[in-house]
């Protein structure tokens, strides 16, 4: 296995929201890496903190939310130390984002070409308009939008097209990382598949990394290289997508994978029904946040929170089943490759 170069290192990231019900710990002390040129899937149910995580990576958390701690290191620099100007440069040029609803993320009074030219000129202000336009044109065609659509307004485009424009905006500045936050959720299934093909293509051609944030686990299985599973603000398992699917370690992952509908007829398993509900993040459960719903829960699980342990190179899990502890009564499971 070749050494994978690291694009972004996230260390001990925590994001807190103040709500009328109390403080919500949306992302709690999370650490992971994003490799160059990889497609990393970040999955979880609604409320698990994955969208918050995506926004945090671009430091786009607005009050009442706040990044309370952590470092995000890109190209040797911690962007948490960046000032406004540096962040503006970072956003769009190094990292860009595609959102779920492209209608509201595109300016309704700007045409497609204007969008892209603006993006270019904001970041590379010396670029002349003609030059920017020709770059835009090339990119648009590359994305499969016909040239005659360049002059269209967002409301004249379909959902799939708008998402492509968003992708274009990310690419035009040669961003290293594109974060796709539920980018395909509102799209029809065939368009979603087209966009997935597009994204894979872009990764091949430009070497761009993709962080695909979604609750659609099947999509992640189709698309990504590695997978991170989030639950209640924590990453509970991470690894290569095949390994995680073949041998899920964390009880939540196991339950989750068994509960996904599979269109293949030869899969005749009944859908697994996960008991309980995601927790209230103003008062998360003590110890491991999943323990109230966990079929394997041990006494230690309600007392102490397990750390995110790398059980094998490239494979990590946050569960007492796989970690030693003096107060643990049962055997620790050894993970073999």
């Amino acid at each position: 296995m070749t050494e994978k170069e690291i694009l972004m290192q996230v260390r001990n990231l925590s994001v807190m929201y103040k709500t009328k019900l109390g403080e919500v710990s949306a992302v709690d002390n999370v650490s992971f890496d994003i490799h160059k040129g990889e497609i990393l899937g970040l999955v979880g149910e609604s409320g698990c903190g994955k969208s918050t995580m995506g926004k945090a990576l671009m430091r786009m958390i607005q009050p009442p939310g706040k990044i309370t701690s952590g470092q995000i290191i890109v190209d040797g620099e911690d962007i948490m130390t960046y000032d406004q100007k540096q962040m503006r440069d970072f956003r769009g040029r190094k990292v860009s984002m595609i959102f779920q609803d492209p209608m509201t993320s595109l300016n309704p009074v700007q045409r497609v070409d204007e969008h892209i030219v603006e993006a270019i000129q904001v970041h590379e202000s010396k670029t002349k308009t003609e030059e920017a336009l020709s770059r835009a044109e090339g990119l648009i065609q590359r994305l499969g939008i016909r040239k005659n659509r360049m002059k269209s307004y967002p409301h004249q485009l379909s959902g799939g097209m708008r998402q492509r424009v968003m992708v274009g905006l990310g690419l035009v500045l040669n961003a290293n990382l594109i974060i796709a936050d539920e980018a395909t959720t509102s799209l029809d299934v065939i368009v979603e598949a087209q966009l997935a093909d597009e994204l894979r293509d872009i990764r091949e051609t430009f070497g761009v990394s993709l962080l695909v944030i979604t609750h659609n686990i099947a999509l992640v299985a189709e698309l990504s290289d590695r997978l991170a599973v989030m639950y209640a603000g924590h990453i509970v398992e991470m690894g290569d997508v095949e390994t995680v699917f073949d041998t899920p370690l964390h009880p939540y992952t196991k339950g989750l994978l068994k509960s996904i509908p599979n269109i293949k007829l030869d899969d005749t398993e009944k859908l697994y029904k996960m008991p309980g509900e995601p927790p209230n993040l103003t008062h998360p459960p003590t110890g491991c946040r999943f323990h109230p719903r966990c079929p394997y829960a041990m006494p230690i699980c309600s007392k102490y929170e397990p750390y995110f342990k790398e059980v094998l190179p490239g494979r990590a899990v946050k569960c007492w089943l796989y970690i030693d502890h003096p107060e643990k009564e049962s055997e620790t499971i050894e993970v073999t490759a």
Partner: protein
Amino acid sequence: MDNLINDKNNNDYLVEVQNLIKWFPVQTTFIDQLFSKERDFVRAVDGVSFNIRRGEVLGLAGESGSGKTTIGRVTIGLEEKTKGNVIFDGIDLSTLSAEELRKLRRRMQVIFQDPLASLNPRMSLGDAIRQGLDIHYPETANNHRDMVLDIMEKVGLSPAKFFYNKFPHQISGGQRQRVVIARALVTQPDLILADEPIAMADVSVRALLLDLMVQLKDEFNLTYLFITHDLATAKYICDRIAILYLGKIVEISELTEVYAYPLHPYTRALLAAVPVPDPHDRRTEPMPKGEIPNPINPPPGCRFHPRCPYAQEICSQQEPFLRELRIGHEVACHFAEDFLTES
């Protein structure tokens, strides 16, 4: 007519839909209305025929613009047809007066997609569920509370007394959908229109809700018209499935039959497009280009022809009709036979 409305008849089919057409007029400005005589129509449903057998779950599957939701709404009588016939248990809905249709509602209920939006925020859950009973059986009002508590237990809202007085915003999304299900079931209907009932539920709750719906179907002898865009989920609940494209049925048969032997190019593309939760089994087929065209001006001939990799000249000239190519398996494509030989 009252007898017909309230008693079950013994027809083979609970619902017969014949050549259903539903066109929505496009909003025009005043000036347009003055100057042009022609109006545009959104041809949401453009000639659809199917039957629903008692006790089955018929899936209407398609992407946006397919007309699946509109078909469901017209079948239930929430929307008026433009042309065609909708026959519920031998009764032609268009022959009913408004009051008769209202009474017939007891036998056809709806589970909506968005549980939060379909519950009155100012009505307690118990009151919301008993509405059907209060409306159609006013004489037995005293028993209704117990009947509601009973059904709440059945759908898993337990202890029912606790939930009876709660309001929609005080419970979770999964619980809300159970309330909607309970509300639909309490009048013991024959037909339930389920309009993407689990699309908005959390991933971990969907399996629970699906299971519940299957269980209740058996227990209450229900028939479902199940509208969905999620073909993977459909596998777990639908007996038969109809694939819709731009207002027409392109393929219809038993679900296992359609999934195993898809004969229409659109069905094949659709089935291939659905992501499979198995990283070893990734899709290799390319997707058709382009997107679903505007239903105001559908393509001539076969509506799928502009995107179809197998399209020939005849496809743009002549519209294919549903033909039975395998037993109980109908397809609307001029060249569907070519796929018969594949497995």
